[in-house]
């Protein structure tokens, strides 16, 4: 992150751009930058959102957001050619949908701090479920009623939802296998004060 900012600053030079960088840094300090922050996104009351539900902030990689700190149209010029990324974001290996899919199918090319629906509508990252729901309509429908995905809180009151991307890494959404916790002790080896031994 620091490297990238330094590169950005040196590439641009000039006081105006430095000023802009300062502004961005301020934005960064207060912007949503990690999953551990308390939910601050206001409940989005649009057609796709579950009612009266607080969704926590999107799980950005530390320091990556806002994207316009680099993708401001000046520091990094817009390049709409489909290509393998080498300088930046080369850690992202897209394993999601057909091979023809790439970054700008979901990320808005003009405003990088937004996502883009198939209709061309720009949406905030905090409403990314609308984007996911374009293809995964059945999951989206279940998620809205609380059947798909994890829900915590109160069964008859306030619940905490998660965004799709809290569990499914959007660039490779398939769940990674995890280590199971230890199996139960077999009854024949159960120890006790009395009785367990045959």
């Amino acid at each position, binding site marked *: 992150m620091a490297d990238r900012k330094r590169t950005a600053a040196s590439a641009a030079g000039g006081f105006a751009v430095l000023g802009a960088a300062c502004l961005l840094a301020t934005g960064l300090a207060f912007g949503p930058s990690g999953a551990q922050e308390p939910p601050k996104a206001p409940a989005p009351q649009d057609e796709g959102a579950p009612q009266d539900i607080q969704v926590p902030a999107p799980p950005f990689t530390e320091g990556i957001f806002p994207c316009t700190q680099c993708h401001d149209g000046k520091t990094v010029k817009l390049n709409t050619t489909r290509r393998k990324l080498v300088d930046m974001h080369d850690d992202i290996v897209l394993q999601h949908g057909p091979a023809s899919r790439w970054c700008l199918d979901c990320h808005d090319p003009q405003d990088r701090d937004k996502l883009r629906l198939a209709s061309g509508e720009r949406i905030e990252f905090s409403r990314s479920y609308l984007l996911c729901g374009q293809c995964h309509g059945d999951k989206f429908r279940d998620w809205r009623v*609380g*059947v798909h995905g994890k829900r915590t*809180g109160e*069964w*008859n009151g306030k619940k905490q939802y998660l965004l799709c991307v809290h569990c499914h890494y959007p660039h490779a959404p398939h769940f990674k296998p995890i*280590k199971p*916790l230890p199996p*139960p002790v077999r009854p024949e080896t159960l120890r006790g*004060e009395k*009785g367990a031994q045959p």
Partner: protein
Amino acid sequence: MSDFPETRAAEPEEAGTGSSSRRRFLATAGVAAVAAALAGCKNLSLEEFVQRNFREVSKDELKTIIARLEKEYAAKFGKKVTVGLEPPLPGVLFGYALDLSRCIGCRRCVYGCVKENNQSRDPQIQWIRVLQMDKEAGVDIQHADPYYNPELVPQEGHFYMPVQCHQCKNPPCVKVCPVGATWQEPDGITVVDYNWCIGCRYCMAACPYGARHFNWGAPHLPPEEINPATHYLGNRPRSKGVVEKCTFCIQRVRNGRYPACVEVCPTGTRKFGNLLDPQSEIRYILENKRVFLFKEDLNTQPKFFYFYGV
């Protein structure tokens, strides 16, 4: 016929001497039995020994019982342990649904449950058992493996089916209890009065889901691991010789919260709610998903449903 009256006449005399000696014998034996019982239960206070069934005690009696229990637990664990008495909520019937297409067999629920419900760590007691099954064979408990332990789950070709108390509407365990130490509450949760249970384990034999567990030894629960928020009919510390079971986390759900296993599951497999509320998640599942009951043919009428979310 002729010697019949003689026999009849002889009876009272014999019975007279017999009854006086029997009375003396019974009196001695009775005192000895009570003394022996009290001596045998040296960890049992007199109040605990004469305590009646939870459903028969008055509110005042309950207060003293709770105070006694809290004092005992505080002495045993060195910290304040509250014993709640939250009653069932009106208009609520709890139901549970588990998505077989999502469970990955990670056993987070098993240990989340142990932590929440103060089960004995040694000898080990767990209320949830996760069965690993072959996808090819389907639900086949004859060949299910609860002891699977691979490096990573889910394993190719397998699916996982956690089993716990099904909170049956027609619970065989309640029917067989000879002393009425276990019963179904109005909100559908089958509970145990640990102070009334005599440890005969009939309920364990009757339960087709293996959901009841017996404290064969004195339960060992490290004081630093105890969950101090307990309910009388739920996760309060148990003693040796009593049966225990899942209560849908009665101490949580009667306060509006989700059970611990629902909240700990990393894949959102577990769903919980009020079966009487048409807007609840659980009702949506029952109305829109493919749902099945485990061992439905036994007519236990579980309120625990398995479904396929995809």
